[in-house]
């Protein structure tokens, strides 16, 4: 699923609050909050590579926007963990086998060696063709 989200200070990605659908509306909410905390869902990147995120790995958090420098809108892909891992597995079979850094035992332990670097769009920080 492709959704619009808020990227804060270049790095952190938050889901729009319910009933807020644009950056302008969100900034009105921030300004109305007058420095108070706003509850938001944050998409974590511990087990995925942006712009693909895992639905189960979002965290409910309270954010104070008074110290924030930039807020931008962008689109991300949100998948269930099962779907994310299935697509990652498929990609490993078609992409990583052509990479010099690929080793047979790397698929152990929850695809950990791949999920840090291999993006579902096929880009990988490590890829180096054999």
């Amino acid at each position, binding site marked *: 699923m492709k959704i619009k989200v808020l990227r804060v200070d270049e790095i*952190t990605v938050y889901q729009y609050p319910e009933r807020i659908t644009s950056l302008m509306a969100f900034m009105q909410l921030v300004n109305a909050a007058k420095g108070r905390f706003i509850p938001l869902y944050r998409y974590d990147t511990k087990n995925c590579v942006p712009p693909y995120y895992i639905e189960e790995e979002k965290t409910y958090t309270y954010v104070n926007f008074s110290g924030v420098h930039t807020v931008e809108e962008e689109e991300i892909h949100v998948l269930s963990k099962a779907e994310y891992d299935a697509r990652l597995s498929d990609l490993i079979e078609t992409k990583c086998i052509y990479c010099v850094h690929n080793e047979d035992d790397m698929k152990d332990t929850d695809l950990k060696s791949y999920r840090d670097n291999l993006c579902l769009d096929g880009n990988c920080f490590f890829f180096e063709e054999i």
Partner: protein
Amino acid sequence: MVHLYQLNGYNIALDVFSGSVHAVDAVAYDAIGLYPEHTPAEIKAQLLEKYRDRPDVTAEELDEMLADIATLKAEGKLFTEDVYADRAFDFKNRHTELKALCLHVAHTCNLNCAYCFAAQGKYHGERALMSFETGKRALDFLVENSGTRKNLEVDFFGGEPLMNFDVVKRLVEYARSIEQEKNKHFRFTLTTNGVLLDDEVTEFANRECHNVVLSLDGRKSVHDRLRKTVNGQGSYNAIVPKFQEFVKKRGDKSYYVRGTFTKNNIDFTEDIFHMADLGFTELSMEPVVCAPDEPYALTEKDLPALFEQYEILAKEMLKRKKEGRPFTFYHYMLDLESGPCIYKRISGCGSGTEYLAVTPWGELYPCHQFVGDPKYSMGNIYDGIQNTALQQEFKLCNAYARPDCKDCWAKLYCSGGCAANAYHATGSVKGIYKYGCELFKKRIECAVMMQVAELLETQEK
């Protein structure tokens, strides 16, 4: 003084005061070890006994070897005396023309790294950005106090300096505009966490900066554990592609990908190899310096494991170089043939004398690690150095000023070590940060071993 050690199958004798390095066989290694305290006859007797099962170790062979050692000694390549101690004590009269400034253009940061010595960029004070006027005055101060030096260095530092990028750009433009008139040449360095790295910064840094330091701790799990945003989000995914793009466009200009390792990643060589596998070839990794009660603090117990890691790193670097995929490691870059002059090797980094840090308000400190500590305020860019006693203390802060360094074989490589680390560990800039010393010595041993290995391999070819 001779430092003898064995590493990676090599027997190495490092003659401290001549800088000569000898790679020898096991018998000669033992002989050199016995030489200062024993007569040739005693050495011969001991070695014949020890190597009685080796037919090649004969009395004649040992005579020849002992004669070689005596020749090396006579030629000033082994067991040389310390001829530098007297020079070190003339340092109070040395000239201290300014060479470099660390410009704290931003006392604020967009990351919230747990181990940050600068307390998230604020240096235990208020958040602040340096104004153009303050930065301009700092550059003028550098020029005015640099005497006849032509090459001057300016580090754009923070916090995160890119949070004040407009001022950085204007300061570089100003510096370039006065170079010809003042007969100076500025070399700029930028240290960044990469969050704000974009095409404009890349183009600017690759055009203007002699060196760029990119902060990355290695593997994603390691990096993201401590290098987070204020919201707790790891920064690895955001910065790695930016760093890769930046380095690709940088061509052959210098850069460092620099990390910090902590108790959480004692196996830090995995992080260095990770950086290398990401395509970065100029690497540095520093041990965290923090209060001992921090959960990520390194302790004495970690030393054996860290020593092993440095050995693993050296061996892997030799291997990768042979395979045609080399990378450099800052602490292993040792020039045994034409390194720094002896003056530099005794006096060290020049903090508090040739090198000063400037806060966003124009205050002067001996280096960035002292910023915010009122005891180490030296003056300001408007009135100059006012705390001359402190400057004098730093003038005399050298390898020979520290009693604990007296018998250390590594003193001409570390120059007495980092004054800030010594201060934070002992309360005195002339103290010794013993933990750092142990790691430093191991790194030098590894660096020398690598040069021995490469030289012997070249000779074999």
